[in-house]
């Protein structure tokens, strides 16, 4: 197992190299113009443009810049380790910006994940065990709604209903509106500011998870070994939770790993609607603004998250399913 993990970690590095190289290549092969122009003022002189290119390192070929990036990433730059340079847009170290934004996105992603796992898996189990009942239909109706409703719409509706500045009934306005308060500043404010984004983001995923849990559990509960377990006289609770649910969770774990990893750089709409100023919104703005260091930083973090979560998923697989063994 240890050798397997080491091998996978080596692959993580390979993946990161490939992804960052592709990002660099795209930046240079599909440019919408000279990035230096954007940062040299509205009527730049050739000297100013040249100086901006020099400061941004854009005066070198892309492979030289890439090498410089790799070198700084591994050994650090004047702003610390890992060296990610400075943002063309804000002129502050990308590392500093990343460290400020990452907790926001992680708070959002993991909080939402807890909500959608709890909600989705619970609804899925109840729905599977009460198949065909009103409860099952209501649960699947919820799932349909969750899957159908766009996140931005849900977000705006939630703000309208529950935020202090919302336009809905006054008695429902018990939550602060948009924004983010660091946990270190005020745990309660952190929590109340994140409830709405958590629930809104979780609804979509919970719907998927509920449908998937229900389907998997129904399928598993029809397996021979479940019948055997029942024949052995195990309680229904034990049959469901120890034998049925555990086996049906494997695909859920796969999906969860990917979902949470993708949210690290991809919760753009939720971050925008709720003004969370996380990594996703930053990545989008940086892309539009041709802010290469910021784009690469988010790409590195996102790719790292995906690779690591994949590894964790594989490890959890082995724990969930005794038949899985890694060499």
């Amino acid at each position: 197992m240890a050798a397997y993990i080491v091998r996978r970690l080596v692959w993580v590095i390979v993946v990161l190299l490939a992804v960052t190289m592709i990002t660099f290549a795209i930046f240079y092969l599909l440019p919408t113009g000279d990035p230096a122009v954007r940062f040299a003022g509205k009527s730049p002189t050739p000297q100013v443009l040249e100086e901006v290119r020099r400061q941004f390192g854009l005066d070198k070929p892309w492979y030289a810049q890439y090498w410089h990036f790799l070198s700084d990433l591994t050994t650090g730059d004047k702003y610390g380790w890992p060296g990610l340079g400075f943002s063309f847009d804000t002129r502050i170290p990308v590392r500093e910006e990343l460290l400020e934004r990452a907790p926001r996105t992680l708070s959002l992603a993991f909080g939402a994940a807890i909500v959608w796992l709890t909600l989705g898996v619970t609804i899925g189990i109840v729905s599977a065990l009460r198949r065909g009942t009103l409860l099952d239909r209501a649960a699947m109706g919820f799932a349909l709604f969750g899957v159908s409703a766009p996140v931005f719409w849900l977000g705006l509706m939630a703000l309208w209903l529950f935020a202090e500045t919302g336009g809905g009934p006054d008695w429902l306005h018990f939550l602060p509106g948009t924004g983010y308060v660091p946990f270190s500043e005020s745990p309660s404010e952190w929590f109340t500011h994140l409830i709405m984004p958590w629930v809104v983001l979780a609804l979509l995923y919970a719907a998927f998870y509920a449908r998937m849990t229900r389907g998997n559990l129904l399928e598993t509960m029809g397996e021979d070994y479940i019948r055997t377990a029942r024949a052995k006289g195990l309680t229904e609770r034990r049959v469901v939770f120890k034998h049925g649910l555990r086996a049906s969770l494997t695909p859920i774990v796969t999906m969860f790993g990917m979902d949470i990893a993708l949210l690290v750089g991809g919760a753009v709409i939720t971050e925008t609607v709720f003004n969370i100023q996380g990594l996703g919104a930053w990545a989008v703005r940086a892309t539009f603004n041709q802010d290469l260091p910021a784009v690469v930083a988010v790409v590195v973090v996102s790719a790292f998250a995906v690779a690591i979560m994949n590894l964790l998923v594989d490890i959890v697989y082995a724990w969930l399913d005794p038949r899985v063994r890694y060499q």
Partner: protein
Amino acid sequence: MRHWRALAIVVVALGLAVGAAACGGDDGGEATPDTTATEPATTGEEPATTEEEPATTEEEPSPEGPQAGGTYRVDWEETFGFTGGFDPVGEYLGEAFGIQSGLLVRTLIGYRHTAGSAGNELIPDLATDLGTISDDGLTYTYTLKDGIKFGPPLSREITSQDVAYAFERIGTESLVAQYGFYYTVIEGMSEFMAGEADTISGITTPDDKTIAFKLTAPTGDFPFRLAMPAAGPAPREVAGCFTEAGAYGRYLISSGPYMFEGSDALDASSCDTLEPIAGFDPNTSMTLVRNPDYDPATDTPEARENFVDRFEFKINSNPDDIFNKIKAGEIEDAVASEPPKVIREYTENEELTPLLHINAGDRTWYITLNLTQPPFDDIHVRKAANLVMDKEGLRRAWGGPTAGEIATHIIPDAMLNETLADYDPYPSEGYAGDVAAAMEEMKLSKYDTDKDGICDAPECKDVLYVTEADRLRQDMQPPTSASFEKIGITLKVRSVEGAYPVIQDVSKNVPASGRPGWGKDYADASTFMVLFDSRSTLPTGNINYSLVGLTPEQAAKVKASGTVEGIPSVDADIDACNVIPVGDERVQCWADLDKKLMEEVVPWIPYLDATATQITGPTVTKWDFDQFSGTIAYAHVAVAQ
């Protein structure tokens, strides 16, 4: 039966969704923020959406009058959009000018920070008066007032050397002064910029209170240039620690009535001990508090009243939320594009109308025509295009009259003292375009071979037209294309995210674009004429989109192809106006050049003199517009206590 039940569930769910969407319509929607405000020369461009003409309100004092104290909270949509990390030498957009000029950086001469022509006039700020100009117009001398200090942690008197040092910073290549070209007229500045001199020979400081500038040529608008924030005093002991563009922005030492919160905690004992001031995080917020070293006696209330105790600027990515907060009184103001429904609400609801402020933006929006590219290399085609263009249709796309006046020439009327207010060389009924006159003009073109008023040459088919991939430009496209088609020109429209870099690349030879707009740097028409100065033409980052005055030699350098012979130049006219001192004669010179451009060169189809629209909250007891920066006059706002 089972299917019917399933269908019923689907119908109910969809019904709920649609119903909820309808409820959300009043408050939701519009989740995609516009990002154009960070692009060159494009701030404050977003359209309004009503046909009604609301009352213009410049300030709305409460019955009790404005009171000192309180916090003025402003949300910024998406980003601060600073161009140079907030270092004054690198900031080149109105939003930064507004904060720096009004609150943080005093200059030798400055502005009243008020609306209208009064806001465009210069008044003394650091200096005791508007300065002395030598008879030959080459030397400007200023004396600093007593008692003006830098804020914490320096808290020391500002001297003429601090002002001189600001020009050294402008001339330091690595700091990337974005409008450093305004100061190359100072003797020795070019040599300093090139690293050929250690000092700027044309700037002398005979004592701590006196500073003199010697110019290489008479430059009538030089006082305006001294009023730009980059020319404000900079303390060498702090600013000198930073040698890269934008780095000083987080350590900015105030010379104005406010400062970054936490400035007093800055350890300026050496460069090594400096840490970014807590009150400014470029990602999220900026907080300003009163500068304890500011002495109101050295200033004047007409320039700065400084009612509020504190300014809080925060980034908010949700424009709906921003305007909900303003309406609810949770914040006072915004630097954001008002969603169309918000403008509609504030123009239609009488209770809210006083909170909508519309002022002249001193900004012209136009369709640029490339003089090297067929069919626009023919002046008759350019004139016909001007005649046929449905400018009212374009203004409708912007939201109607609230968006501004129809532009009939290049320089905004307010900057020409209304000299050309009635001038329209290409008139049409209701600004809808005069097809008959356009066809008559087209008959004179070489591209109308059968002289029927319709362009029949292949050069008029599928003419590349680059524009922005946003809603506004999509709305502009039907009237634009329809107008061109009336004279036989069909457009091949390319909508791109970030059209500016495309049209600023000369080698792309873009024949026409509906993307550009241009706003003044200061209230002198020279800041518009840089767009037609052939000497400023660059291969990339070029702003002379029409390539006015391009010579064949230049064309080869900047990789322009097409018709590069015989392009008219106005360089000499620009030079002639530039030497005239600020005043009526200078204004008339620019007005005449504007007419020459519109009639003899025809590089643009100007269509809109844009207004600047602002919505304030109910807690605001005094509000004004800063005509210089084209944004909130922070130095004059007040809030209810």
